[in-house]
């Protein structure tokens, strides 16, 4: 019997799990994918919004600003790459600049610090590649960029290390009320995964409380227990990621002032030094529809050019799309259900969800702690070490490391210069990697310009040896995403 079961190991579920682990509690996280951070959390703009965009008084506004404020501490405690690069909302000569004033007013009402409107002359010194049509911009110095994979994994690993169980590869198939709370029917899928062991097949997880952090499926979870129905639409956002050689094309996150052409697209450096362009916004019926489209990718290039000139689109190394969980009420839906006591929603978490995640974790954990009068966990450890990146060491330190662990002298991913030592670390740490994408999200091996062409066979060998697992069990990202189908002459 668990005190709390959290459905979903995205950034929201993981943040809540981590905050809950500050208390004496028997908690678990249930995730249908083979790794944490596999849904909306892995495919988004990777930015920490300043918080001027949301309507004052909404949860989005409050939690965004609070989440942004918390990021410095979180980045430090959990060793997550985070940079406050500042953001710009640019207005072009065809647009009404009063739109910037309105954003600034909203920002002030939301208590966003340091907002200023900058004129072209000053702007162009800060950001020389802004398009010639840009006249002015709203500058938010607290805007930032973060690695969403590392943020989610950091929350999850820290929660796991503080005693929260993680059932990966485990899909929720039903939720019913019970005498003491809820019975969650789950199906543990076949396949290798890390986290808390469970035999493949169906199980029932009993729990006093449930947290619904199921992303685009949070309406399904809610609607299994409540008469207050939710309706989540998957809103697809397509992105293009450019090579690091284009990473310095802009240094701030450049938004477009929403106008007749829609919300526009952003151009931003990523915290790892690439350049990201996106997203589109298309409501779709398919909650699994993470495909990119020719029209979408075409739109990105054309629209981004309105704010940033000379975008080197030949340097695109990959494109992807993510689904935002858009709820009809247009705000985050957070809190205990009136008709289902002990069932807490963290639903409808679309943008600025990543930015708000730390604050949502704090809020939901706070509600649960209050309701169940939880005591603080005296053994709670707030810190977690990320994967050691040898490039951050001095030459002497690096050589000392290689003498101790020669795998740190062996480069596996040539594009990102990732060593075997880092991959071994990613496999053996808490909630360690079991698939190629899981290795990639943790170490960046395979995330560079050749997109894993060279390193995937080598990474597979390391997984085979270290986990250990058979070559035929190795997947790209769980399920049927097998990499090889047999030995030569076998088929």
């Amino acid at each position, binding site marked *: 019997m668990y005190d709390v079961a959290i459905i979903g190991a995205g950034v929201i579920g993981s943040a809540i799990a981590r905050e809950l682990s500050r208390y004496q509690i028997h908690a678990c996280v249930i995730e249908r994918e083979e790794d944490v951070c596999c849904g909306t959390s892995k495919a988004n703009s990777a930015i920490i919004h300043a918080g001027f965009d949301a309507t004052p008084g909404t949860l989005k506004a409050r939690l965004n600003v609070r989440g942004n404020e918390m990021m410095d501490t979180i980045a430090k405690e959990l060793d997550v790459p985070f940079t406050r690069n500042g953001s710009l909302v640019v207005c072009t000569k065809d647009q009404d600049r009063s739109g910037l004033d309105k954003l600034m007013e909203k920002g002030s009402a939301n208590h966003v610090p340091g907002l200023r409107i900058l004129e072209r002359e000053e702007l162009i010194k800060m950001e020389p590649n802004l398009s010639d049509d840009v006249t002015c911009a709203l500058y938010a110095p607290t805007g930032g960029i973060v690695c969403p994979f590392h943020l989610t994994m950091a929350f999850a690993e820290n929660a796991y290390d503080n005693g929260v169980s993680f059932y990966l590869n485990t899909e929720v198939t039903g939720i019913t009320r019970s005498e003491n709370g809820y019975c969650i029917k789950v199906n543990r899928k076949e396949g290798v995964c890390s986290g808390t062991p469970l035999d493949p097949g169906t199980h029932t997880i009993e729990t006093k409380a449930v947290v619904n952090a199921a992303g685009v499926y949070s309406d399904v979870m809610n609607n299994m227990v409540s008469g207050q129905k939710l309706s989540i639409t998957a809103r697809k956002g397509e992105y293009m990621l450019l090579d690091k050689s284009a990473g310095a094309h802009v240094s701030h996150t450049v938004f477009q002032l929403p106008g007749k052409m829609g919300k526009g697209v952003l151009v931003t450096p990523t915290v790892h030094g690439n350049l990201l362009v996106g997203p589109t916004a298309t409501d779709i019926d398919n909650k699994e529809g993470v495909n990119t489209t020719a029209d979408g990718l075409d739109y990105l290039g054309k629209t981004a050019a309105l704010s940033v000139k000379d975008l080197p689109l030949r340097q695109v190394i990959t494109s992807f799309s993510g689904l935002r969980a858009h709820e009809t009420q247009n705000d985050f839906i957070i809190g205990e259900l009136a008709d289902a006591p002990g069932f807490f929603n963290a639903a409808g978490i679309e943008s600025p969800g990543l930015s708000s995640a730390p604050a949502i974790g704090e809020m939901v954990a706070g509600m649960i702690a209050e309701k169940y009068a939880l005591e603080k966990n005296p053994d709670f450890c707030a810190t977690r070490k990320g994967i050691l990146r040898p490039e951050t060491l001095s030459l002497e330190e690096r050589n000392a490391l290689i003498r101790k662990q020669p795998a740190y002298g*062996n480069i596996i991913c040539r594009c990102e210069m990732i060593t075997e030592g880092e991959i071994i670390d990613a496999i053996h740490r808490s909630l360690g990697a079991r698939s190629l994408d899981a290795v990639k999200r943790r170490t960046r091996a395979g995330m560079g310009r050749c997109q894993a062409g060279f390193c995937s066979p080598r990474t597979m060998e390391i997984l085979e040896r270290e986990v250990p697992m058979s070559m035929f069990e190795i997947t790209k990202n769980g399920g049927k995403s097998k990499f090889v189908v047999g030995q030569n002459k*076998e088929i």
Partner: protein
Amino acid sequence: MKAYDLVIVGGGPAGLAAAVSARDHGIESILIIERDKELGGILNQCIHNGFGLHTFKEELTGPEYAARFADQVRERQIEYKLNTMVMDISQDKKVTAMNREDGMFEIQAKAIILAMGCRERSRGALNIPGYRPAGIYSAGTAQRLVNMEGYMPGKEVVILGSGDIGLIMARRMTLEGAKVKVVAELMPYSGGLKRNIVQCLNDFDIPLKLSHTVVDIEGKERVEAVTIAEVGPDRKPIPGTEIRYTCDTLLLSCGLLPENELSRSAGVELSPVTSGPIVNDSLETSIDGVFACGNVLHVHDLVDYVSQEATTAGKNAASYIQHGKTKDAKIVEIIPEGGVRYTVPKFVRPTEMEDKLTVRFRVGAVYKNCAIATYYDGTLINKRKRPVMAPGEMEQVILDKSKLAEFPDLSKITVRIEEA
């Protein structure tokens, strides 16, 4: 810090031939740095035959061809380090490298030869829309899995791109029991060698659809189907021409890119056309004493030409080490025109060059019954008829030092495709 006269980055066919040539021209202190576990580079996974017809007058497999050069390196006791990654090259020719045994270390070189080869264009760089399931491989990754690891990446295969590795893999996968359903090529012509189309596709009844591209990839976990469509002259898909193939694998063979991240960080000037360094007749880059050869310089069709080019680079690097920088000689630019996409080298020093200089290039389209014309300023020097020229095959012209000497005021050399 250790010091070598010559450091060669890459122990593939280019690096090996360059090392042998530099030693034969008198350089004792040579180090080859190779990131893989053996010498030979990508040839080690090219187990098909057809290598070495020009160099050895016989048909060798890739590993056999590589072994001939690796043996020459060992016979000459040229030093090499395996499993060693070059991390950085500085403008003053300090090479930073790393491996398990030595850790991270620096080497001061008098001259450097860049021989890092190339990599394949990835799905992301091609901007193919659709899902991102497992089962999408570059042809070279599939080749490594099948030929070196012994694993089959899939059973039913669609190949996009008719580059040589894709063609070779169409045959290879078929021989291993897979069904290759189609090869789609965006361009109206193949990017590969004619002989590979015949031997790898035609002989196995694998259809090649020119002017076709992939417009959708289905399957969330593993590839389930790929849809291709015909493209118009603007290379955009024509609605209504879609054909859907159920398959579990999509191989990509859509071009190779010289791997010049090290060159770029060293400050070597690169050509936007080849993505390789801009070099003069001695294959020297914009940095004195830094030379380039093989696929890092421009993507070759035959390894024989890589070896020839590398031999030249090795000889010239030796001369640089022995005699220092050549005095400021007059430089003439070669201008590619009328279908000639680029030339290697781009610059010629008429007073310093070899008696005969091979200038290699590729054409931008298929040309039938045309000629390659060479002009010194406005004067036609040479016109050679070619029945067929295609982008998949390299072309060349030979420049004659004595002829150039007749043009002391020469300002440019032009190479162009003309009607025969």
